[in-house]
């Protein structure tokens, strides 16, 4: 009897304490929730410099006083799923701000919100259409032959395709959480997509609704994303900063444009189901996408705990390209933790700034002839023995690394032990 009585007393006592704390929290939370809250995201100023159909290009104002600013501009291409505002979620967690402070002349593609009229647009329309027009626009604006290109997730896959088809226009390529090898069962998305009847989906919906996709993403980890997240919110709703950041994150997550039907169909059929890209068998606009044409320097980031795009979906790219200058960086975080976690904010964006500066040589101006007649992609040459690096950046230096080599940068990576914030937990869960 004693063994049951003591825990029961303790439990009741703890419940009473919890109830008292909860009452205090609710009372304070009502002040926070009824007060003025600032949950605006993407607050870094920019101007729109290019507009075509629903697509726009944002140009951010860099810090001109920074030492050694980059000569070649950087174009960031986000995925068609969710929005590019994630890179500028809040002032103290902004990849955009770090890039600008580092002297990068930053442009970002805003794909807009596809309407039903856009349902017939294919990957070719995005890559050889919009992206190519934007790159040409920037080359002319800056009077240069090549620009830097960075892609995120599906946007990264588009960048890989683009750089393979137009290598003469790309100086350096950065891919982050970019799927290129789809033949893996590590990510649930890869498993679920294998047998999906994409044709019927496209016939049914026209464009694939953002809400449907978001529901699918929530189902990837319902315990964290549908329960724990909101329990965390209730626990912290008396904290104004927390509430503001939480609502920002919510606004970003559920701001999901629809994906043009034909683009979705091609992405699922050619990539997820047939895995054509990594095998150099994919065709866009009648041209074969040959990854051996990727001869520019490549920096490839991915997250070790990424459930959406797991490491095996990303790390085969470096071996498939024709470049001699390739670096893989594996971060111990999830799909969006790379961009929004404060821990990785200090690793990810500064690393890109450094990497680009190391490769920012004097540019050859674009001549009139080159503008109208850009040199065609040279046929793939036999790949020279490339010197490749693979880096694993860990939050815990004592943790065993999966990477085959450890480099100086890995050792230098700042480490912070301690409790994960809720935002970081959500970032890891995604």
């Amino acid at each position, binding site marked *: 009897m004693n*063994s049951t009585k003591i825990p029961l007393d303790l439990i009741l006592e*703890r419940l009473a304490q919890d109830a008292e704390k909860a009452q205090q929290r609710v009372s304070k939370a009502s002040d926070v929730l009824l007060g003025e809250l600032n949950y605006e995201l993407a607050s870094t100023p*920019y101007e729109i410099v290019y507009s075509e159909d629903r697509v726009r290009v944002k140009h951010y104002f860099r810090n001109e006083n920074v030492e050694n600013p980059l000569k070649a501009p950087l174009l960031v291409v986000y995925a068609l799923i969710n929005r590019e505002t994630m890179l500028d979620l809040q002032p103290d967690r902004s990849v955009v701000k770090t890039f600008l402070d580092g002297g990068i002349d930053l442009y970002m593609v805003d794909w807009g919100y596809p309407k039903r009229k856009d*349902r017939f647009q294919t990957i070719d329309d995005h890559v050889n259409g919009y992206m190519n*027009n934007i790159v040409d626009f920037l080359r002319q604006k800056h009077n240069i032959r090549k620009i830097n290109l960075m892609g995120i997730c599906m946007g990264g896959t588009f960048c890989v395709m683009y750089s393979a088809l137009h290598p003469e226009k790309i100086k350096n390529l950065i891919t982050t959480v970019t799927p290129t090898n789809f033949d893996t069962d590590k990510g649930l998305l890869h*498993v679920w997509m294998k047998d999906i009847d994409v044709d019927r989906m496209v*016939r*049914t919906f026209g464009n694939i609704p953002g809400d449907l996709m978001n529901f699918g993403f929530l189902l990837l980890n*319902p315990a964290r994303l549908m329960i724990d997240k909101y329990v965390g919110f209730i626990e912290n709703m008396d904290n104004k900063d927390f509430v503001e950041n939480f609502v920002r994150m919510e606004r970003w997550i559920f701001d999901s444009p629809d994906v043009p039907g034909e683009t979705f169909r091609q992405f699922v059929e050619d990539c997820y189901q047939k895995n054509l890209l990594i095998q150099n068998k994919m065709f866009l606009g009648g041209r074969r996408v040959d990854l051996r044409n990727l001869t520019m320097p490549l920096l490839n980031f991915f997250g070790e705990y990424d459930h959406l795009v797991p490491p095996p979906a990303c790390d085969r790219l470096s071996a498939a390209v024709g470049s001699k200058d390739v670096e893989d960086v594996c971060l111990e975080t999830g799909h969006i933790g790379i961009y929004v976690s404060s821990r990785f904010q200090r690793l990810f964006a500064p690393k890109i700034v450094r990497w680009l500066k190391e490769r920012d040589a004097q540019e050859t101006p674009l001549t009139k002839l080159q503008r*109208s007649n850009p040199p065609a992609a040279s046929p793939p040459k036999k790949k020279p023995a490339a010197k490749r690096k693979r880096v694993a950046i860990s939050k815990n230096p004592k943790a065993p690394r999966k990477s085959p080599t450890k480099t100086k940068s890995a050792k230098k990576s700042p480490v912070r032990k301690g409790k994960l914030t809720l935002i970081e937990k959500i970032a890891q869960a995604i």
Partner: protein
Amino acid sequence: MAQDGNPFPNKESILLPWLQTLGEMWLNLAKAVPPNSDTALKTQTVIQNRFTEQLQTNLNLMKSLSLMMSQPESASAAANSVNALPEILLKMAKSGFDAAIQIQNHMIEKAGRIGKRTEAYNFDNLDQEIFRALTDVYEKELRQYLKIPPLGLTRFYQERFNAMLDKHNLFETTLAEFLSILYLPMEKSFKIFQEKLNQMAEEGSLPKDTKESYAMWLKILEGHYMSLFKSKDYTDALHRTLGNLEDFIIARDQALNDILQFLPVVTHKDLDDLYREFYDLKKRVKALEKQMEVSPNTLKTATRP
């Protein structure tokens, strides 16, 4: 007692006087209307005349019908048809009742198996018989009524409307199955959590606060979800639900399209045809622009947001 199980043995004797009375009533009514009264002719318009003529014709028709029906053979045939109606209704009610009994039996069977459905962290061969039974009952007992071939001018509209109801019902049953599968990890995690708490209580190491207990339960739940999502049963149920949702949306759109056609509005089908043409045309224009080195940038002046 009725012979041959017939509940109305004297139906002819009941019907005959009633039909005769009915016939006489129509006859008298027809006589009461003056056919070619002068005053009526002066005040009636052409349309009103047509109406009176039509009325008279109808009354005469009714009169003939009543007289014909008053013949013993006709009355018997009519009575037989009236008798058949309750039989049809009874048959329909019976299949509905059978379905309800079948569902109830499955529910009782399921109740006996609660807690024995699957092992912890194992989601193979899920017990989803109750939902299969629901689908089965619907497909075997109820669906047939929606599959009766419609006739006449509106047959295609009716067919599409029935298809919409059919697909909706199928989607509902598969959705119920899918949601039940999604709830399984919850069910299991509570069970495992309870077992773990018992074990900890025996060891005297109960969690210090609710937060710790919650974290423990969440970890169990997450593990169960991960196991579930990798199981073939779950993937199959997901695809089935998505497939049935798509079928329902297609059927719904087709039925709605029929309704919209009667209204002065553009349908999705019209728009999609137009969008296709618009898309092809735009591609050609862009290719021409490229040839002529015209920038597709539509922005004339840069503006701040």
